[in-house]
C-alpha cells in the first residue's frame, strides 16, 4: 500500500518504562477509511502504541504522523486534544456525572452539545431516547455504544478502539463487533483496533498488524496473515498450526520430505538451507475413518496412519488431535457430521500446500508466547 492514502503512519517508535522496553522500533501504516487491527499477546506493547498515537504517552524515538501532519517526532509531541484522534476505551469510560446526551456531546462546541449532531450520533448507534439516562443505568453493551457515539461525534481523523469488546459476553460481543464494523464503514472512518483476540482481528479488520515484544513482525490482510505467517510463532498465534520438521528438501521443486511423507510446499524451497519447518493448517489435514471403511478409496500411498487422542467439538466442525504411528502430534479440522471417537484409527491426507519456514527460535520471552 502506498503511504499517500495513509491516515496514520508510525515509524520506528520506541518507548521504555524503567526496566521494560515496551516498544522497540514499531512501524505501521493505517490506510484511510479502513480498519486496522493491532494484534498481539498481552505485554507486546500494543496498548503503549495506542496510547502514543492518542498522545497520552510521548515516544522515546520515532515518529507518528496523522495524515500529512507530524504529531509526535524527535522534538515535538502534540497534546491529545489537538490531534483529532478519538478513543473508545476498554470499558467505555463514560463520564459518570453527566447523562448520555452530554457524554455524546462532550467534545462538541458548547452550543452544539445538545443539538442535531448529538441526536444523529445516538440514532446511529441505536440509542435514541436514552438521552437523559445516566451511564450507570445502561448495560455494558449500551455503554460501549455511547462511547462509540461520543468518539464519532467530533469526526476524528482516526478512531482508536482499545479492546472495546473484551468485557462483554460472547453473543453481545459478536453483535457489537459487526455493528461497530458497519458504523465505521458507513462513516468512512479510519479506525485502529487493539486486541489480543485473533478471531476479532481476523473477522473485523481490513489490515492486521501483528506485534510481538515491542515490534511489528508482520502486517497484511487477514487472509495473508493466516496463509503466510512469517514464522512459527505467528503461525501459532494466528490460528492453529501443525509444524512438521522437514527431513530433507525434495529433489523436485516444490516438494519436501517430512515425518508424514512428501508434502508439496509453496514459497522458495531453495532458501531453506539447514533445518526447516513445513506448516499446515488443521483444515489442510483430511481425516479418513479406517475402522469403518465403507468402501471409499482411502488407503492410498499418501495416507498417514494415526490414532485420535482428543476431540474438541465446535458445532460447525471439530478439532481432532491425533498421534501418528511415528509419535507426532497433529491437529486436523473435520466437519462435525463426520463421526469420530477417541482411540479410533484414522488416516490423514494433506490437501493444498504447506508453508516452509525456519524452525522456532527460542530467543523471545517465553511468557510472551501465549495469548
Amino acid at each position, binding site marked *: 500500500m502506498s503511504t499517500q492514502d495513509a491516515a496514520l503512519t508510525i515509524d520506528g517508535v520506541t518507548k521504555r518504562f524503567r526496566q521494560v522496553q515496551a516498544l522497540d522500533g514499531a512501524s505501521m501504516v493505517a490506510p484511510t477509511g479502513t480498519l486496522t487491527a493491532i494484534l498481539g499477546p498481552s505485554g507486546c506493547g500494543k496498548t503503549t502504541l495506542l496510547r502514543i498515537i492518542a498522545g497520552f504517552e510521548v515516544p522515546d524515538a520515532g515518529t507518528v504522523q496523522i495524515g500529512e501532519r507530524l504529531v509526535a517526532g524527535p522534538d515535538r509531541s502534540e497534546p*491529545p*486534544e489537538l490531534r483529532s484522534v478519538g478513543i473508545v476505551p476498554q470499558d467505555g469510560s463514560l463520564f*459518570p456525572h453527566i447523562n448520555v446526551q452530554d457524554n455524546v456531546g462532550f*467534545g462538541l462546541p458548547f452550543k452544539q452539545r445538545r443539538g442535531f449532531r448529538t441526536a444523529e450520533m445516538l440514532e446511529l448507534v441505536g440509542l435514541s431516547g436514552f438521552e437523559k439516562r*445516566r451511564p450507570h443505568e445502561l448495560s455494558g453493551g449500551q455503554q460501549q455504544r455511547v462511547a462509540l457515539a461520543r468518539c464519532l461525534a*467530533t469526526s476524528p481523523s482516526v478512531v482508536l478502539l482499545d479492546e472495546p469488546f473484551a468485557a462483554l459476553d460472547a453473543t453481545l460481543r459478536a453483535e457489537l463487533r459487526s455493528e461497530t464494523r458497519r458504523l465505521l464503514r458507513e462513516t468512512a472512518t479510519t479506525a485502529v483496533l487493539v486486541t489480543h483476540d485473533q478471531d476479532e482481528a481476523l473477522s473485523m479488520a481490513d489490515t492486521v498488524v501483528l506485534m510481538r515484544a515491542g515490534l511489528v513482525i508482520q502486517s497484511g490482510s487477514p487472509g495473508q496473515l493466516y496463509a503466510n505467517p512469517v514464522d512459527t510463532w505467528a503461525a501459532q498465534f494466528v490460528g492453529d498450526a501443525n509444524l512438521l520438521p522437514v527431513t530433507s528438501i525434495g529433489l523436485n521443486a516444490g516438494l519436501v520430505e517430512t515425518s508424514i511423507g512428501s508434502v508439496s510446499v509453496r514459497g522458495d524451497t531453495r532458501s531453506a538451507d539447514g533445518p526447516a519447518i513445513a506448516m499446515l493448517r488443521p483444515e489442510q489435514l483430511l481425516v479418513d475413518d479406517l475402522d469403518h471403511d465403507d468402501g471409499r478409496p482411502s488407503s492410498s500411498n499418501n495416507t498417514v496412519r494415526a490414532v485420535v487422542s482428543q476431540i474438541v467439538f465446535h458445532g460447525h466442525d471439530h478439532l481432532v488431535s491425533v498421534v501418528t504411528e511415528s509419535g507426532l502430534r497433529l491437529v486436523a479440522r473435520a466437519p462435525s457430521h463426520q463421526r469420530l471417537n477417541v482411540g479410533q484409527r484414522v488416516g490423514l491426507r494433506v490437501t493444498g500446500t504447506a508453508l516452509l519456514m525456519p524452525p522456532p527460535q527460542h530467543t523471545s520471552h517465553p511468557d510472551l508466547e501465549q495469548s
Partner: protein
Amino acid sequence: MRSTDQSFSRASVRHRPHLGGAALVLPAIVGAVIALVPVVYLAFRATERGLRPVVVEVSRPQTLTLIHRSAVLTIATTVLASLLGLLCALIVGATDIRCKRFWEVVLALPLAIPTYVVAYTWLGTFSDPAPFPGALGVLVLSCYPYVYLPVLGALKRLDPALTEVARSLGNSRHQVFRRVTIPLVRPALTSGSLLVALYVLSDFGAVSLMRYDTLTQGIYLSYVGSFDRTPAAILGLLLVSITAGVVILELRTRGATAAMVSSARTPQRSTIPASLGRMQAATQCFLVAVVAASLGIPGSALVRWTIASDTLDISALSRPLGATLIAALTGAAACTALAVPIAVLSVRRPSRATSFLESSTYLGHSLPGIVIALAMVFIGVRFLTPIYQRLPLLTIAYVALFLPLAVAATRSSIVQAPPALEEASRSLGVGPLATLRRVTLRISAPGVAAGTALVALAGIKELPATLLLRPTGFDTLATQIWTDTSVADYGRAAPAAMAMVVLGGISLAILNRANHLGGTR
C-alpha cells in the same frame, strides 16, 4: 418436575436458615434503644410543660444571639475548611508535589488532636485571642481533614481513562479539570463540608475555651447555671433540629455519591499528575504553613510546657490516664458487643426492621455530645438513679454517641465476608452462632478491631458527655485539660494534653494497621 421444584422452594422459604435468633436480635434492639431513647426523652422533657415555654425560650434575645453565633461560626468554618481541604487534596492528589507520601499522611493528622487541646494551646501561645477569630482558626485548622480525606480519596479513585478521553475529545488540561475532575470530586467535597458543619455545630470544647458562646456552650451554661433544667432541654432540642437539617442534606448528597461510585471501577493506573514546575517551592511552603499552623502550634506548645512544667509527676498523670482508659475501653467494648449483632443482621438479613435498627444507631453520631449528655442526665436522675454519675451511665452515653462508628466499620467488613463461606460452614454441621464466631467474625476481625479502635479514640477525646456524666472525682484527661484551662492554668494541663495526643496517636496507628489488614484481604 415442576411441582417438586415449587414445593422445594416453598420449603426453603419456610425454613430460612436463622442466624442465631434472639442472641442477635436482643443486643441489636438494646443498641437501637440506647441510641433512640435520649433524643425522644429530650423532646418529651423539653415540652413537658407545653409548648409555651418552648416558644418563650427560643424567642429570647439571648437564644437568638446563640443561634446567630452558631450559624456564623458554622458557615465561616465550613467555607474556609472546605477550601483548605480541597486545596490540600488537589495538591497531594493531582500534582507532582515532592514528598507526596509524607504530605498525604501529615495533612490528615490534625484529626487526631481534639479541638479543645488545640484551643488550649492557642490560648497559651497567643495572649488572649479574640473569641471569634480564635474559635474560627482552631476549628478550620482542626476540621479541614474532614474535606481533605474524602476529596483525596475521590481523586485517587478517579479513572485516568476519563481524563484521557476528555483530552482526546479536544479539551485542554484546564478544561478537563473544570469539566471532569471537579464534577467528579464534588460529591466528596459536599459531604465533607457537611461533616465539617456538623462538627462545628456540636463542638463544645473549643468554643467554650475560646469564650465564643454558641448553642452548645449555651446549653452547658443553662444546665450548670440554674436549677430549672427545662431551658437547657429546649436549647438542646433546638440544636438537634438544626443538626437534623444538616444531616438530611448530607444524606441527600450521599445518594448522589453512591451513583457515581457504582459506575466507576478501581482504576489500575493512576492519573498522570499535573506538573507544578516553578510553583513547586511555593506549594511546599504553603503545605509547610498549613502543617505549622495545625500541628506545629499545638505540638510545640505542648512540648515546651511539658518540659517547663516542674509539677511533672507521674502519679498526678496516672489517675486521669487510668480513668480515660477505663471509660474509653469500656465504651469501646460495649459498642463492639452491640455493633456486631446489628451489622450481621443488617448485612445478612436485610429487611425493613433490620435497616431501621441500623439507621437508628446513626442518629446518635450526628447529635452533639452535649445534647446526648443532657438527655442522659435527665434519664439518669429520674429513672436510673442507681447508676447516675457512675461509670455504667457514662458507658451508655458513649454507646449512644459512638455506636455508629463501630457499626459502620463492622458492617463494611462483614459485607466483605462471602456468604458462601457461612453456608459451607453450616452444611458442615456448624451452628449459626458458632459459624458467626468461627467464620464470619474471623474474616471480618480487622474491620471489627478498627471499629473498636475508632470508638476508643473517640472516647479518649470525648469531652462534654464525660464532663456531665462522670462519677464524682473521676477526672479523665479530657476533663482535666478543660478544667485546668478554664482557670487559665496552662502549664498544669500540658502533661495531660501530651498524654492525650500520644494516646490518640496510638489508637490511630492501631486503626491504620487494622485498615491495612482489611485492605489486603
